[in-house]
C-alpha cells in the first residue's frame, strides 16, 4: 500500500502568552487512496489542529514540526508556499465545522465554487459554470442555477455545508479532510449531510479523513480509527478491532460511554477533563482520569505499544479489558 497521506511525528506548538503550548504531540497518520480514516477524541485533543497543519492553515503563532509529511508522493514540508498552494484546494480539500461562517458573506455561492476551479483547473468560464451546476446537483441542492446566484446568508446551515462539500469536490481532490462536518447542524440535518459525504466518498473513491467525536458514526463508516487525547495519539486500529477490543484505557472508556452501551438509568462518563496547559501530568496524560493508573503511569511517560496492541500509548495496554503488565520499563 502506498499511502496517499503519510505523517510521522507531527507536532504543533502554539506560542501563547503563558509560554509554548503543544497542541499536537508526535502524531502519526497514514491514509491510503480511497480509504476512510476517522480521528476521534474530545474537544481540545488536537484533532483539528493536526489536520489544519497538514493543510498549512494554522495561524502564524503555530510552529509545525514533523519527521515526515508526504502527500501523494510529495513532501509537504519541503515545498515552498507557492508549490503547496497548487496542491491545497486541488488534490487536498477540507470541509469545516461551521458552514455558515465558512462561506464569504460578500460573494455569491457560484463565485466561491468557481473560484477554486479558476485557480487550479484549465477550464473556460462556461465550463466552470457548468461544473458548478453539476456540483450543486451532486450535493443535492435543488434549482442549482438559481442557488449559484444566492449569497451565503440566504442559505440554511445544511445548505451551506452542502455548498462547502461541493466546493471541496470542485477540483476532484484525492483526499478530503472533514473537520466535524455535522457538529454545527441540526440533528435531523446531521444524518443527511453525513450520508451525502459518505455516498460521494464511495462514488468518487476519494480518501477521507473524518474528524468527529461521534463514535456511532465511526463504527458505521470508518475503516480505521485514530484516537487522540490531549494532543497525543493514544491508539490506532482498524475499526472492527477497536470496537471489539480497545487497547488503550481511554478508548475503552470512550466506548463504554456510548449511550447504546449504557446499562441502567445513568449514562456512563469519563470523570475529569482534558488537561490544559497548566495542569499537564508528568507521566501519562490520561493517568488522572484512568481507572487502571499506577504510580508508574503518573510519573513516567508511557511507551508506544506494537501494532498488535493498536500502537497504544500506555504502560498497561488492555487486552479484552484487562491491563497487561509489561516486563520492560520505559
Amino acid at each position, binding site marked *: 500500500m502506498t499511502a496517499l497521506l503519510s505523517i510521522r511525528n507531527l507536532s504543533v506548538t502554539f506560542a501563547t502568552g503563558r509560554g509554548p503550548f503543544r497542541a499536537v504531540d508526535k502524531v502519526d497518520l497514514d491514509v491510503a487512496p480511497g480509504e476512510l480514516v476517522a480521528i476521534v477524541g474530545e474537544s481540545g485533543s488536537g484533532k483539528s489542529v493536526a489536520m489544519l497543519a497538514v*493543510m498549512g*492553515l494554522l495561524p502564524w503563532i503555530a510552529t509545525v514540526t514533523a519527521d515526515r509529511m508526504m502527500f501523494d508522493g510529495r513532501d509537504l514540508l519541503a515545498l515552498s508556499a507557492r508549490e*503547496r*498552494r*497548487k*496542491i*491545497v*484546494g*486541488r488534490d487536498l*480539500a*477540507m470541509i*469545516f465545522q*461551521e458552514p455558515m*461562517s*465558512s*462561506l*464569504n*458573506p*460578500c*460573494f455569491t455561492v457560484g463565485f*466561491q465554487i468557481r*473560484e*477554486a476551479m479558476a*485557480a*487550479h483547473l484549465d477550464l473556460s468560464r462556461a465550463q466552470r459554470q457548468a461544473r458548478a451546476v453539476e456540483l450543486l446537483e451532486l450535493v443535492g441542492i435543488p434549482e442549482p442555477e438559481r442557488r449559484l446566484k444566492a*449569497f451565503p*446568508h*440566504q442559505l440554511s446551515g445544511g445548505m451551506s455545508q452542502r455548498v*462547502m462539500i461541493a*466546493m471541496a469536490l470542485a477540483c476532484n481532490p484525492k483526499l478530503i479532510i472533514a473537520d466535524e462536518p455535522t457538529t454545527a447542524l441540526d440533528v435531523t440535518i446531521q444524518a443527511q449531510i453525513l450520508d451525502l459525504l459518505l455516498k460521494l466518498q464511495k462514488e468518487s473513491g476519494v480518501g477521507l479523513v473524518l474528524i468527529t467525536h461521534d463514535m456511532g458514526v465511526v463504527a458505521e463508516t470508518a475503516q480505521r480509527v485514530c484516537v487522540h487525547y490531549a494532543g497525543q495519539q493514544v491508539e490506532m486500529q482498524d475499526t472492527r478491532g477497536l470496537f471489539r477490543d480497545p487497547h488503550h484505557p481511554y478508548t475503552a472508556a470512550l466506548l463504554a460511554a456510548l449511550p447504546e452501551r449504557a446499562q441502567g438509568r445513568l449514562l456512563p462518563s469519563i470523570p475529569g477533563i482534558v488537561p490544559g496547559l497548566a495542569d499537564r501530568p508528568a507521566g501519562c496524560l490520561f493517568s488522572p482520569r484512568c481507572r487502571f493508573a499506577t504510580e508508574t503511569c503518573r510519573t513516567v511517560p508511557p511507551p508506544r505499544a506494537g501494532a498488535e496492541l493498536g500502537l497504544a500509548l500506555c504502560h498497561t495496554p488492555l487486552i479484552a479489558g484487562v491491563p497487561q503488565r509489561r516486563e520492560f520499563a520505559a
Partner: protein
Amino acid sequence: MLKLILRRVALTLPTFVALMFVTFVAVRLVPGDPIEARTGERGIDPERLAALRHELGLDQPVWKQFLDYVYALLHGDFGVSIVTKTPVLHEFLILFPATLELALCALVFAVVLGVPAGVLAAVKRGSVLDHSVMAVALAGYSMPIFWWGLLLIMFMSEYLGLTPVSGRMDLINYYFEPVTGFMLIDSLLSGEDGAFSAAVAHLILPTIVLGTIPLAVIARMTRSSMLEVLGEDYVRTARAKGLSPLRVVGLHALRNALIPVVTVVGLQTGTLLAGAVLTETIFAWPGVGKWLIESISRRDYPALQGGIMLISAIVILVNLIVDMLYVAINPRIRHG
C-alpha cells in the same frame, strides 16, 4: 431599496430644521452686528445706524427675522450678502469648486494611502511596520491642522523651496477664465505650458494638511477591521482553496473589511469640510472655508447662515450616498 432611500431622506428633514434654528441663533449670539463690524472704531451716527439696521431688517424681533429667513429659504432664497450685495448662493457656487477640489484630493490622498497602510499593518501585525504605521497614524490624528500646515510650509516651501506657499495658482504667470472652477481641469483646458503642474504644485501641501486626519482615521479603521476579518472562518476557507495571499487578503478579506471603512470615509466628509476652513485660511485658498471665516469677522449673517446650511446639506447628502454605497457592497443589507 427605494423605501430605504426615502426613509433616509425623511430622516434628514428634522436635521435641517434643527440646523436652520441653530445656525440662525448661533450667528446672532456672536457679539456685534454687521453694521458695527463695518464701521469699527470710527463709530457711527445713531440715526444712520438705525436706518441701516432697518434696511437690513435687524430692527425686527428675532423670531420674526427667523420666520422671514425660513420663509425665504423654503423658496430657495439664501439671501444677499450684506458685504458684497451678491446672492449668497451665487457666491457659494463660485467658491465651492475650490473647496471641493481640495477636499476630493485630500480624500483620495487619505484613502489611497490609508487603506493599503491599514491592510499592511494588519497583515504584518506586531511587526516594526505595524507599529510604525500606527505611531504615524496616532501622530497624524493628534496634530493640530494649523500647526502641521505651518510646519509643512516652513519645510517644503521655505527651506526646500519645492512648493508654493499659498494660493491656488501662479497668477503672475498664468491667467485663464474658469470653465469648471476646478483648477486642475481648467489649467489643462487653458493649454498653457506649465499651468497644470503649477496647479498641482499648489495643491500638494493643502492636500497633505487636510488629508492627514482622515488618513490616520482610515488607516486605523482599516487595520482593526482587517484584523477582525482575517480571523474569520471564510478567510480560512479561501486559503484552503489554495488561493494566493494577495487574493485572500485583497479580495476575500478586504471586501469584508471595507464595509466599516466606507462608513468612516463618509463621516470624514464632515471632518474634511470643517478642516477646509482652517486649511484654506492657512494656505489662502479661495474656497468656502476661507469665505466663511471672513463672513464671521464681517458678521455677514446671510452669508454665514447660507454657507453653513449649504455645507451641512452637502455633508448630509454625502452620508446618504455612503449609506447607499454600504448597501451596494454589503449583500446582507441588500437582501435583508
